[in-house]
């Protein structure tokens, strides 16, 4: 028996969405959690561990929320397979914990009836029991437990109430009850109806409806879902979020950047000039800095998303935006990732996690980098300042501002068109029906929000960073090696692989009006869009492009580029995938190189065509 005592108990948490399942998971495992991916799918595998009072280790698996074991999405398939014990590479759970919102038992009872068929021991955790009590909802726990053939524990995850009892019950079940015979099969429509009738019977027999039902949610919805007021409030929330990204995150990002520049300077001052210094300063330190610099934006965007999600508002935002997003074949929930992408595509791509359905999510990820991110602003400002006259149009509009607006609008419009094309040509009819529960409003739990925020940040650093950093070093290596020969007169980059690549692709880019300097600048510009400005400074041998250098560069561009070339370069930057970090994050979020490759190819093709049309259109207008 010693073996059985030592073996950890494996619990799996199953439940409807919005039942506080993740809060319960956090309450159980605290900080002893790790996040990975299930083999072969993009579904996140969240597992934590705790030590029971008996000293026994308990592993807890937090499974994706579902209404049924009849899986409808990759997430729900993971839940089904984990419960049935047929998930490749996973040991089946000893005990299933079915998590229920005590104030909304109807649907979870039906799920519990399905779990009963599986034959594996399970506990029903009636979470948010305090709210049920406050509403005067009475549940005959003994009677219900007897009928379900499973013990019931009441919990308040956010206050850590009932956790010990849940652990004790699960441990007892694991020791006493062997897994029975699995008679579960995918229910037919009539079997679902039958289960509903049974759930209804159980409700009638053991649950007395609340004496003081919740009316707050209804009253809040009267305002937040109002056709006019609701949209105004949504816009206001989005405006605050957008402001926060620029007002809070950008200074922090600048600070991180400055910190790493200073660190680079420090390291440069103590290492001998040469390859090692260049590798350390321009390759590694700059590379790590360029990963961490995204963190403030990611954390700000996710802080908002987690609060909106936890409070129950996210479903309302999706409701309000569904018709508009739906016109382009997007899910209502795509709105927030796409808005976030206007700060940076990286938090945007990560935020697409709020969309459950695979095709809806992939479409959103694919168009996210078309939104005008903040890294494009330095490029746009430089080119517009250098080549677009500071004149007034129709008496009131500033021409430079108008071009800037046009660039933003092109990003949004082309994104919606691409989404529409993807949905009508490639994934025709793949759109899922929009049906979802509007959860009861509640105050977000600060501990949960912070824990999930921390988790997002760590995932980005450890997993996305692992892809981004080598790509950054690669871009550095291409721009550095080989060194210029003795007595070389041109800028060093001209002799590097980047220079070779630039000269090699120049004939390809000549039709869109790019000179060789621009072609070269595109290679280091892959590190991040704003790096193109510095790279142009390097190839035009301006030196430092900050402050006065920027004006010098602008005047050089003004003298050497035609307006057609400048417009073509702008068009290129609307579409081109000039950001390896984004491709790295897409690789991480889609769990493979397929979708980054698709993104890279379609965006390059689009950029080329757009620049070609812009260049020759401008030449035809006499701007060549």
């Amino acid at each position: 028996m010693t073996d059985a005592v030592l073996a950890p108990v494996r619990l799996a948490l199953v439940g409807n969405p919005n039942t506080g399942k993740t809060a319960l998971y956090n309450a159980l495992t605290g900080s002893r959690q790790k996040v990975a991916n299930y083999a072969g799918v993009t579904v996140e595998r969240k597992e934590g561990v705790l030590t029971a009072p008996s000293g026994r280790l308990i592993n807890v698996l937090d499974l994706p929320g579902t209404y049924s074991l009849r899986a409808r999405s990759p997430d729900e398939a993971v839940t089904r397979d984990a419960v049935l014990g047929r998930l490749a590479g996973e040991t089946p759970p000893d005990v299933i914990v079915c998590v229920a919102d005590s104030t909304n038992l109807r649907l979870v009872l039906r799920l519990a009836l399905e779990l009963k068929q599986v034959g594996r021991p399970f506990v029903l955790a009636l979470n948010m029991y305090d709210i049920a009590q406050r509403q005067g909802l009475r549940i005959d726990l003994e009677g219900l437990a007897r009928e379900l053939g499973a013990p019931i524990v009441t919990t308040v995850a956010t206050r850590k109430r009932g956790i010990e009892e849940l652990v004790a019950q699960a441990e007892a079940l694991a020791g006493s009850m062997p897994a029975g015979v699995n008679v579960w099969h995918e229910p037919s429509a009539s079997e679902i109806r039958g289960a509903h009738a049974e759930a209804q019977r159980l409700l009638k027999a053991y649950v007395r409806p609340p004496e003081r039902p919740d009316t707050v949610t209804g009253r809040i919805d009267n305002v937040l879902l109002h056709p006019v007021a609701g949209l105004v409030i949504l816009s206001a929330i989005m405006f605050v979020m957008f402001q926060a990204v620029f007002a809070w995150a950008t200074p922090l990002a600048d600070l991180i950047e400055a910190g790493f520049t200073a660190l680079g300077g420090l390291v440069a001052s103590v290492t001998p000039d040469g390859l090692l210094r260049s590798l350390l300063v321009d390759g590694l330190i700059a590379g790590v800095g360029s990963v961490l610099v995204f963190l403030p934006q990611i954390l700000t965007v996710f802080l908002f998303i987690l609060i909106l999600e936890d409070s129950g508002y996210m479903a309302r935002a999706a409701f309000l935006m569904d018709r508009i997003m739906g016109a382009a074949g997007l899910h209502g929930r795509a709105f927030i990732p796409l808005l976030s992408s206007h700060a940076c595509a990286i938090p945007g791509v990560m935020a697409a996690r709020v969309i459950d359905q695979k095709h809806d999510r992939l479409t959103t990820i694919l168009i996210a980098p078309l939104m005008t991110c903040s890294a494009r602003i330095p490029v746009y400002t430089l080119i517009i300042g250098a080549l677009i006259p500071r004149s007034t149009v129709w008496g009131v509009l500033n021409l430079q501002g108008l071009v800037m607006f046009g660039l933003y609008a092109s990003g949004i419009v082309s994104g919606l068109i691409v989404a529409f094309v993807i949905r009508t040509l490639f994934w025709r009819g793949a759109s899922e029906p929009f049906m979802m529960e509007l959860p009861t409003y509640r105050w977000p739990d600060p501990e949960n929000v912070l824990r999930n925020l921390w988790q997002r940040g760590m995932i980005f650093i450890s997993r996305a960073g692992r892809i981004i950093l080598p790509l950054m070093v690669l871009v550095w290596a291409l721009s550095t090696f080989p060194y210029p020969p003795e007595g070389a007169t041109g800028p060093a980059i001209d002799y590097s692989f980047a220079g070779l690549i630039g000269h090699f692709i120049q004939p390809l880019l000549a039709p869109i009006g790019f000179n060789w300097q621009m072609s070269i600048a595109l290679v280091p510009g892959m590190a991040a869009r704003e790096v193109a400005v510095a790279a142009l400074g390097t190839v035009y041998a301006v030196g430092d492009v900050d402050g006065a250098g920027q004006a010098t560069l602008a005047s050089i561009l003004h003298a050497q580029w035609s307006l057609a070339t400048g417009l073509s370069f702008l068009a290129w930057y609307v579409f081109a995938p000039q950001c390896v970090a984004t491709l790295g994050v897409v690789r991480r979020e889609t769990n493979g190189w397929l979708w980054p490759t698709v993104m890279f190819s379609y965006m390059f093709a689009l950029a080329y065509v757009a620049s070609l049309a812009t260049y020759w259109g401008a030449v035809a207008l006499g701007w060549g």
Partner: protein
Amino acid sequence: MSTATGLESFTAPRRLSQAARGERGVIVRVAPAADSRSGAVDAGELERRLLELGFVEGATVEILHEGAFGRDPIAVRLDDARVALRRREAAAVEVRFETGATA
């Protein structure tokens, strides 16, 4: 909760998709048109998904909110839960509405 006194009168069954804000009633049939498709989802699958969300014969529904554009999607009270769905999918749900209950 329910005020079913047996005295209210109900309309003949109508589709939930045709209802306006404030109307409430009892679901009498959940049946997507046999050859209809809802995006990636065929009639049988849509029926099961509606059932799983709680759209089942005998459940009470009330239209709470309508979207700003084309009054779509709709938010309904479904027994004691709130659910949002598009009118296209709501067409599969037939309801006997209370007369005189419209706002």
